[in-house]
């Protein structure tokens, strides 16, 4: 039996979403065709758009479908940067945080190296939350030069919820648009696009019980956005490409259900997560809990448990758990499969060794008490073995 504790990487598709998707897979019709089949496809897409808008508190016209979170992040960052700079050439600064996902960090690095953007990654505190004083100071230093601000809604590695309302307030005082990557947040936390005040928000299907390969950028109509993909102009002229009707149908159903059940699921999953953390820490007393220790959804993603096991290599732990059918993540970016110390943990003040000794367990809609039992049963022998191996990992004296 597989114990799946990696819902933050991807979570199982909801049966309803799979059914909605497969229902469309057999249908023909390009949503941009003018005939009856095309109109039928278009109707599915537009109803899906309305469903998503209703679930997430935006207008249907504010939903731009993309191929997923990475594309939505790229569209938001590059599209906003180019438009805002075109309006005023002084706007070459971008403010973000040191703990963003690589789908944000890498486009920012690219804009910096290829397109003269001056990117400032603002620091976070020891739980991974943006330092608002530093953010405010960076904004007020030269607000006219800032093209945009991008701050994730909740961190994918340690689950820390960012102070989006304060970020919006500070940025909007100077008319600066705010993008947020809410890929981890939808379905886990209450998310309302309009109420949040953000100008652009990234969502993706496979993190909320929908299919892979589809996501959306929610973006306010009045925000200027330069296109990234040029072609047929299918999505508001800022995103081209034949519309993926089945995927969008699946995304809409998943989105609706994830939001509908969010409050109940958050309570259930957070309780399970708290139990996982307390039982693992009782079994391995020297382990430590990373991120915000406050369980409430205002502070931390309910499904996220991120722990450091001193003296162990995260990849040894992962391998040993995998051999026992327990699946989790080192929560870090991989370079050719080579685990790098997590930039998130380093930004939170962990040293290289702590960062490498960490595992992320993430729970979701299919998680049960039995999953926690299985992990608690396995963790002691696994940690003992990994620690024995970890002591050997230092370069020998020469």
């Amino acid at each position, binding site marked *: 039996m597989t114990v799946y504790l990696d819902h933050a990487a991807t979570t199982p598709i909801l049966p309803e979403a799979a059914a909605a998707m497969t229902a469309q897979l057999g249908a023909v019709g390009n949503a941009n065709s003018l005939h009856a089949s095309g109109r039928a496809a278009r109707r599915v897409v537009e109803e899906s758009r309305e469903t998503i808008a209703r679930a997430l508190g935006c207008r249907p016209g504010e939903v731009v479908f993309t191929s997923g979170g990475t594309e939505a992040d790229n569209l938001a960052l590059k599209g906003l940067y180019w438009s805002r700079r075109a309006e005023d050439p002084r706007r070459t600064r971008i403010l973000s945080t040191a703990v963003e996902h690589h789908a944000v960090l890498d486009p920012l690095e690219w804009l910096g190296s290829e397109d003269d953007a001056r990117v400032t990654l603002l620091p976070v505190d020891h739980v991974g939350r943006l330092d608002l004083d530093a953010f405010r100071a960076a904004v007020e230093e030269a607000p006219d030069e800032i093209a945009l601000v991008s701050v994730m809604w909740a961190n994918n590695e340690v689950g820390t919820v960012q102070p989006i309302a304060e970020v919006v307030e500070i940025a909007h005082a100077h008319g600066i648009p705010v993008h947020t990557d809410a890929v981890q947040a939808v379905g886990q936390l209450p998310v309302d696009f309009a109420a949040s005040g953000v100008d652009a928000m990234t969502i993706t299907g496979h993190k909320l019980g929908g299919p892979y390969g589809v996501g959306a950028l929610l973006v306010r109509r009045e925000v200027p956005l330069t296109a990234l993909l040029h072609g047929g102009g299918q999505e508001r002229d800022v995103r081209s490409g034949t519309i993926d009707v089945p995927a969008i149908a699946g995304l809409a159903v998943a989105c609706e259900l994830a939001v509908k059940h969010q409050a109940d699921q958050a309570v259930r999953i957070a309780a399970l997560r708290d139990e996982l953390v307390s039982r693992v820490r009782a079994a391995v007393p020297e382990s430590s809990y990373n991120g915000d220790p406050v369980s409430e959804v205002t502070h931390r993603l309910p499904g996220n448990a991120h722990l450091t096991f001193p003296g162990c290599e995260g*990849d*040894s732990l992962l*391998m040993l758990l995998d*051999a026992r059918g327990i699946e989790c993540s080192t929560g870090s970016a991989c370079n050719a*499969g080579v685990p790098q110390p997590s930039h998130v943990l380093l930004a939170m003040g962990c040293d290289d060794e702590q960062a490498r000794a960490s595992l992320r367990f993430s729970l979701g809609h299919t998680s049960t008490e039995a999953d926690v039992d299985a992990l608690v049963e396995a963790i002691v022998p696994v940690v003992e*073995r990994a620690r024995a191996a970890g*002591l050997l*990992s230092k*370069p*020998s004296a020469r």
Partner: protein
Amino acid sequence: MRVLAAMSGGVDSAVAAARAAEAGHEVTGIHLALSRNPKSYRTGARGCCTIEDANDARRAADLIGIPFYVWDLSDRFHADVVEDFLDEYAAGRTPNPCLRCNEKIKFAAVLARGLALGFDAVATGHYAQLRTGADGLFELHRAADPGKDQSYVLGVLTQDQLAHALFPLGDTTKTEVRAEAARRGIQVAAKPDSHDICFISDGDTGGWLAEKLGEAAPNSGGAIVDESGAALGTHDGSWRFTIGQRKGLRIGTPAPDGKPRYVLDIEPVSGTVTVGPREALAVTGLTCVKPLWCGTPPAGPLECTVQLRAHGAEHRAVLEPTADGFAVTLRDPASGIAPGQACVVYDGTRVVGSGTMAATSRAARPAEEDSWTT
């Protein structure tokens, strides 16, 4: 047994892993990441350590149906292999980093970590054979395919290491391994063999050494002299030379007899490089240090054969133990032998042990047989 299969992304290690799994072992594939920045090492299919190679290894593991992970050994590899390689060259010696990698990484760091994690053995795609001798000790023998035999680069392994090693390809020819890979559907069946040093991406060892050592010691040039000590020219770094080297000496004046000249000796402290005729390269005696014995060390003189470089010829020899190693008298002179290289000692096909060549003594007269290979 629970077996760790070291998978480089090449055909040999993929077939070795497949055979270990087929033999009933519980096999886990691992790819060793030896560079912190994989792109900085090789590109294409020329060696190990590229992202592409890691992906090839992963695909092969998927096909075999075994778990697969990448292990980051970059710190260990840098400290134990790359820096050692540089130090040895800086000291005027010519090391073989593949032996060092087997001794310190594959059958030390990886094996130790594997044992700690609950594995029993490390399997590799090396062409060599393991047997159990009459005395119950593990014996390392040359591979069935003499053209691919890699027992030389494993000549540093001890009983403890051999007890936890598996070489599933030792009884097979390379041709058969390629055919088997194709039959198994392993995509890398036709991938070319790796030859050069894996951490030197373009294969230009001289240029790489010049860059690395040139930074550390920018004024390490010296004189190029002939056997009588007469100056023939200068150079800007002794690491550019290896004993037996003919090309790239950049000596303006030709030898009086018009024959090509070869590097005979490198003196790292003064930086003096001695050159001379090919005949002067012939070596009849060696002293070796840092001995490593596969089994029981020889107690007295031993009639044996020795191999002095990877894929080099075998030389009939007599070994005599010394206080810190052993001395070797060659019955067939060898040429182009450089201190720092490994001397692997064989009794028939069996590896007796190895040592690092510290000094050579030369023949009084020209050698008749030439074992110089490039």
